[in-house]
């Protein structure tokens, strides 16, 4: 593990431990009340979900072009994180929607495209697991299509008449709400980096072990 890993993991843990207190101290939103606080975890997890899909797509494209196994390991780790953060986004979203929109689920462009992005990441992992030898190359092609969906998720709220809050909401937040939000974004980003590093490292160890097994057989 790199030298910075343990301190980064400790800082990340501490930030997560503190985050509920910071969120609790943030002011209540006038119309939604307590449930608005879901937003402090929902939006950072949604950003990490999109970041995961982008990293997975870029690494897959580079893997297809260069056949460098390191890129493939990065893509796999990013796909798993896309599924994880995507699930968090898709669970926290309805918790907020139930109060804000009066329903758990709405087939809104952003919600639908996010679900599609999450399903593509799941399909990537299913292909890796059950596709047999050579599935990493095939999965890389799927990841590229997953990456193409990311700009669509991002701009969907600006181009369609939708009930999902627009991207432009974030800069308009007062400091009392903006500061906890950016704190949570940094916390989730650090968690993303820590998990990504750990997962890539694990894949590296696995491939080294496989190489040793092969060498032993020969």
């Amino acid at each position, binding site marked *: 593990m790199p030298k910075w890993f343990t301190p980064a993991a400790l800082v990340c843990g501490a930030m997560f431990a503190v985050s509920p207190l910071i969120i609790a101290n943030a002011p209540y939103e006038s119309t939604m009340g307590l449930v608005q606080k879901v937003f402090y975890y929902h939006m950072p997890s949604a950003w990490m979900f999109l970041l995961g899909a982008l990293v997975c797509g870029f690494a897959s494209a580079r893997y297809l072009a260069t056949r460098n196994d390191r890129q493939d390991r990065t893509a796999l780790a990013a796909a798993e994180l896309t599924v994880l953060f995507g699930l968090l986004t898709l669970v926290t979203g309805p918790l907020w929607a139930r109060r804000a929109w009066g329903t758990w689920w709405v087939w809104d462009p952003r919600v639908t495209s996010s679900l599609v992005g999450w399903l593509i990441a799941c399909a990537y992992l299913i292909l890796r697991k059950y596709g047999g030898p050579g599935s990493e190359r095939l999965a890389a*092609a799927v990841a590229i299509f997953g990456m193409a*969906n990311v700009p669509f998720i991002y701009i969907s709220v600006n181009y369609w008449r939708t009930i999902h809050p627009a991207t432009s909401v974030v800069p308009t937040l007062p400091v009392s709400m903006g500061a906890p939000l950016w704190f949570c974004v940094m916390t989730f980003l650090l968690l993303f980096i820590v998990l990504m590093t750990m997962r890539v490292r694990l894949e590296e160890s696995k491939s080294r072990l496989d190489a040793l097994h092969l060498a032993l057989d020969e």
Partner: protein
Amino acid sequence: MTTPTLAASVWQIVRKDWTVEARSREIAYTTLFFAVSCLLVFAFAIVREGKAPEGAGEGILWATLTFAGTLALGRTFERERQAETLRALLLAPVPRAAVYLGKLVGIVSLLLTVELILAPLVSLLFAAPLLSRPIWLLAILLTGTLGFAAVGTLFAAMLVRARSRDVLLPVLLYPVVVPVLIAGVRGTSALTDPEFDAAIARFWLALLLAFDAVFLTLALWTFELVMAE
């Protein structure tokens, strides 16, 4: 010997697929029969007291096309695998793009033929006025089918040697083509609206064209790299 142009190579592959299909008619018949069976399943599931819910026909048309298209895609490449001709196709001295485009044209033409029979049937069984604007319908069906087949051809080709390919094709394909299906259903619904607005239909058609452009570009680039060996 002169090197054939890309268009000539594509045409050769399309002609080969059409000849094979004209002799056996296997994929056309099975796809069409499967599509009609799907329509019946939908009819039994949603038609109540002889009436289908309003707007159901458009959705059923696209859902049936998706299921039948998946069957046709899988079968097209399975035939190449069984006859051991896929390797010969990939070894042919033509660009990989020509192989992809040839297969794509073959699949799109097959699905369009199925759609020509399916659309009047849906119109009849689900009381959907699908044929009231035939040129618009043809444009929506063509662009939607192209988007679906652009991704489907790539995935079916790359899965041909994968384990559990029959299960994996829909698992990979459906999430990616959902935007095309949404635009296809909404575009078709715009045509059957009693207060038809050409601007709405144009919007969905333009969106389908945009998806086609993105999917075709990505698929052409990826096919070359994935089918390298």
